[in-house]
């Protein structure tokens, strides 16, 4: 997995901050956007490129829930569990997905196509319940619609 960024990409994010260490989150975001997770080698690479302690990079990777230490499936399905979605039947979507994909929350299908996870409020409460698949919002979601979307994915 090549997680290294081009010199141009590094310079572009460094230019936004007065201190290189501040570029850590955007750098990790770029790396994860490219290869889907932050492997240990990428933590060392970020630490060396930005001149920060490797332990601080690891601290950041583990603190922020969006950073992944292991790759997800090709499609990452996030089901909102927060209060407004729960009041509109978000639990039904989750239990449907568990049955349909035969997965528990946090698991990935054997063919590595789908990962099922829950998330906190996605700020889509006016059209709850909300599901996010690879960054795209589907709301309000019903089990039928979600099944249709998944069946059309490669």
């Amino acid at each position, binding site marked *: 997995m090549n997680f290294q960024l081009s010199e141009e990409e590094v310079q572009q994010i460094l230019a*936004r*901050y*007065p*201190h290189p*260490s*501040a*570029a*850590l*989150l*955007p750098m*990790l*975001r770029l790396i994860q956007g490219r290869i889907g997770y932050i492997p240990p080698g990428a933590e060392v690479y970020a630490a060396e490129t*930005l001149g*920060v302690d490797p332990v*601080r990079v690891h*601290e*950041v990777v583990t*603190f*922020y*829930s*969006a*950073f992944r230490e292991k790759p997800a499936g090709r499609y990452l399905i996030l089901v909102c*569990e*927060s*209060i*407004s979605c*729960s*009041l509109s039947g978000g639990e039904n979507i989750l239990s449907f997905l568990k049955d349909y994909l035969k997965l528990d929350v946090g698991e990935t299908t054997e063919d590595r196509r789908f990962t099922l996870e829950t*998330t*906190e*409020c*996605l*700020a*889509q*409460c*006016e*059209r*709850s319940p909300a599901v*996010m698949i690879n*960054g*795209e*919002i589907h709301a309000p979601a019903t089990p039928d619609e979600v099944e249709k979307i998944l069946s059309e994915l490669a």
Partner: protein
Amino acid sequence: MSIKLVTRNFDRPDSHTLRVYREGGGYETLRKVLATRTPQEVVEEVKRSNLRGRGGAGFPTGMKWSFVPRETGKPVYLCVNADEGEPGTFKDRFILEQDPHMLLEGIGIAAYAIGARYAYLYLRGEFVEAGRRVEDAIAEACEAGLLGSDLPDSKFSLDLYVHYGAGAYICGEETALLESIEGKKGWPRVRPPFPAVKGLFGSPTVINNVETLAKVPHILEKGAAWFSALGTEKSGGTKLFPVSGKVNRPGLYEYPLGTPLRTIIDEGAGGVSAGKKIKGVIPGGASCPVLTADEIDVPMDYDALAKVGSMLGSGAIIVLDEETSMLKTLLNLERFFAHESCGQCTPCREGTRWIVQVLERIAAGKGAPEDPDLLLDIAAHMAGRTLCPLGDAAAGPVRSFVTKFREEFLDPLNSM
């Protein structure tokens, strides 16, 4: 009666583009302010408008701006808090997606007022569409010579960068937000020093919410007196109210501060769905203590809600009907706080998890008669004992739900 200031362009096609924003007179106010007003005059105008922070804390915006020391030799930073994550809240997302230029004009005026040459917009990592819209809007504004370096007006330059969060609610707390921009985990800082004196990269910093800044062009356009008169004596202007839960028309509604909660639910959101009765209403997002059906004539403003023991918070109204389980609702809210507690302060880290354990026990039908009092006791040991307001945010709902709906935390028939 609803009044459209921040939402006035939302219904127009392509409302997010510079062309449409300019057709409605957009950026004229920024131009006039740069040409005719001193930074000090802008701060005074915003002070007189009684604009208070729309992120949750309700701090007077003009006063916040006036705390920034001049001539320290250090750069001044403006940080825009777009880390909207309070359950029930979706107002800033609407501004970012539907009218990002109104926000950018507000950012320009604020930066001029406090003397900021650089600004960071801290955007929730999950806001994919909002991110696209805001980044496009920044590019459009820079190309048109409205933002950026080397602008025609030599008094003003502003470089604005989008900094994406990575899924931590705590980074909406202003000092955790600063830590996050600096490339660290989002642990709130000890205050003092306050950000106005020592904030981002050790420099004087102002952190304002998206909705707060979107109000600023209207204040400078029509004047502080006009804006102030829209609201109550101590809280000027309109507020965005995101309404969700058991209502007929969930959505975003803009009303003057001081509008009764009942009016927003009935007139704005079309009343309770399926002809049911209200059991309770959370008036300002997940961290605000719940109100009973008897309490919803309260005027929606900072002081009136504080008087009835709750908060305006983000203004997010969540309606719970007669069939809603208060046990299940509180468990949902507290799981959120337990998940989002950053772990720095013991009362919050341990308290939120303990509360979840007790609620789960009651929900499993294994509750003890003393559990409601135990919950109140844990909450009492969290409130006011943490560095940031997350401990209070988790304790408030426990106190209000357990006190007002105590029987639901006792009766095994109400278990889930």
